[in-house]
């Protein structure tokens, strides 16, 4: 009997059905549970951190590095080295004064003298100690302030590179 009533045409009258608007509003109830949101928050936090790390370009990192005392010193030495080389080119070879902390920080560079080799652009790189590198890699993008005293950075300036691009050519000399 009841089956008959449920399946009767009277049950199928359009008024017994929801309107389209009512049906659409049911979708408001479609929300994930708390566990979903907990994972969502964790993933989002990680995603934001990763996006911030990616945004920090090499330039920014270099800029940050130069903002630190050790980095600033390296920057000054770089400028001094460039000025020295310019002076060397315009006059007789000059002996560039040695500087900084000790022999372990001395880095050989290609000679400023014209050796007749084909000239290429300046190559400038900034190095740090292995521990500082490990800190930078492990922590993402930052040079940790605790490593500043441990840094044995040097500025590596090469000029008149050979065709293979290596600066270790005869005539190399210590800049600082």
């Amino acid at each position: 009997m009841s089956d008959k009533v449920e399946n009767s045409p009277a049950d199928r009258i359009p008024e017994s059905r929801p309107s389209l608007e009512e049906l659409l509003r049911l979708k408001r109830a479609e929300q994930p549970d708390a566990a979903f949101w907990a994972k969502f928050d964790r993933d989002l936090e990680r995603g934001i951190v990763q996006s911030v790390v990616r945004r920090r370009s090499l330039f920014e990192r270099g800029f940050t590095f130069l903002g630190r005392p050790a980095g600033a010193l390296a920057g000054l030495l770089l400028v001094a080295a460039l000025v020295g080389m310019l002076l060397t080119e315009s006059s007789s070879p000059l002996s560039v004064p040695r500087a900084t902390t000790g022999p372990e920080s001395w880095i050989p560079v290609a000679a400023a003298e014209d050796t007749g080799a084909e000239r290429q652009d300046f190559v400038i790189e900034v190095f740090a100690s292995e521990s500082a590198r490990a800190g930078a890699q492990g922590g993402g993008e930052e040079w940790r302030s605790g490593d500043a005293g441990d840094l044995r950075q040097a500025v590596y300036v090469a000029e008149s590179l050979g065709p293979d691009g290596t600066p270790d050519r005869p005539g190399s000399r210590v800049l600082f």
Partner: protein
Amino acid sequence: MRDAEAAVEAAGARAVSDDPDLRLVARVKAGDQAAYSSLVHKYKGRIFSVIYNLTSNREDANDLAQETFIKAFRSLDRFRGRSQFFTWLYRIAVNTTLSHLRKNRLRHFFNYEDLQEETVNAEWLEAMTSANRSDRPVVLRELQEKLNEALQQLSPKHRTVVVLFEVEGMSHEEIAEVLKVSTGTVRSRLHYAKQQLQSLLQSYVR
């Protein structure tokens, strides 16, 4: 001229002090990233809902909601407060989702003929209308699936308007601001979209 600039600045400062979202945005811009968590917490449900209703796919909705909040975070410096924060956020969510749908068009393709055929067999709809049925949740879920399928038959533009208006409860003006179209366009798209849905779901709705 200076007075005008001062007035604009004063108005901006007033707006920031009046609008809790803008206060949070100002804090994020000042470096307080925890303030962004408050904004995420406030809007994640609505943003997820919009994206889910546009994609009908929970995994896609999760990924796109994440992408939306990351994009918003990275673009926050460019948010000037000329529109409400949530409008701006919705715009990012909708644009991100529509872009995703364009790239993955085939993935959400449904066979129109199959849907039409199924709509003829709608006896479970009558069951849904009788109260105290133990299978009511199941029936409701089926109904939702049919609705999702019908929504996917709409073009992304029309679907967006329906979702924002009917599900999210936004006004025509707010939708126009999110989509950067006129309110007339919003009304027109809404009218057409509802006609389409009514036709697709004729066996399920009155």
